[in-house]
């Protein structure tokens, strides 16, 4: 059933990445007063493109026991450091209002992905039950 593998399309990876980004932004906000802490963020478009690429190309497997590369997830290497508008003297680059804005935006987009997935589930259910 090839169809069942990509039922959710991009939203599956998107939801996972949004979830990871919540963690990164929460870490920035928690360390808002930590000296020498450098704020970080996920380059969302780049990571998602990478995930999608991995999905469409896949990994060549010569045996049924081999594991595919799908769902490798965002590793720490995908994290990038933020360029601060106004770095503080103690070496901290967290700008709390910016982080809060990014966090709110990320939460909304997470809910959007979740909604797309829910709608998809509802439509598949309709197709299965036929009413």
């Amino acid at each position: 059933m090839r169809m069942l593998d990509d039922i959710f399309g991009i939203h599956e990876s998107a939801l996972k990445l949004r979830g990871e980004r919540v963690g990164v932004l929460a870490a920035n906000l928690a360390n808002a007063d930590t000296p020498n802490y450098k704020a970080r963020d996920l380059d969302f478009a780049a990571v998602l493109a990478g995930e999608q690429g991995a999905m469409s190309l896949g990994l060549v497997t010569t045996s049924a026991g081999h594991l595919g590369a799908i769902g490798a997830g965002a590793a720490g290497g995908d994290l990038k450091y933020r360029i601060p508008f106004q770095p503080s003297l103690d070496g901290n680059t967290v700008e709390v209002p910016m982080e809060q804005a990014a966090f709110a935006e990320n939460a909304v987009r997470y809910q959007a992905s979740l909604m797309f997935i829910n709608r998809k589930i509802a439509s598949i259910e309709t197709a299965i039950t036929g009413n």
Partner: protein
Amino acid sequence: MSLLKVFDVAGSGLAAQSMRLNTTASNLANADSVAGDASKVYRARQPVFAAALREFSADGASDDAAVGVRVLGIVESQAPVTRRYEPGNPLADAEGYVWASNVNTVEALADMISASRTFQSNVEVINTSRDLLLKTITMGR
């Protein structure tokens, strides 16, 4: 599941900021404390924060993303303590002087505002993550 680690991270932020609020309260309460000896007088204290790298990854996975806060310790201010002439004070030394604490009230108040702002944003993070998780576990209903 990265969203569950948010609670650890934001929780460590809450703990660190409440520690800072505690030292601020102690500093403000002792702003007018005096002692008969320079070594015994209250000195302003504040916590030292550091990023808790790799503390929350129990399985040793590459979990650099979730970095909490850790309180390394409490340091006392090295600002000079002032000597005041108060012969009527029972704590005064033989020459009639008392030593006053080196708490800077304005600094302590600014510190308190900063700590409470960061505390609030951590609470906000926890609330939002909780809502997202609750919506996620009811996915497909």
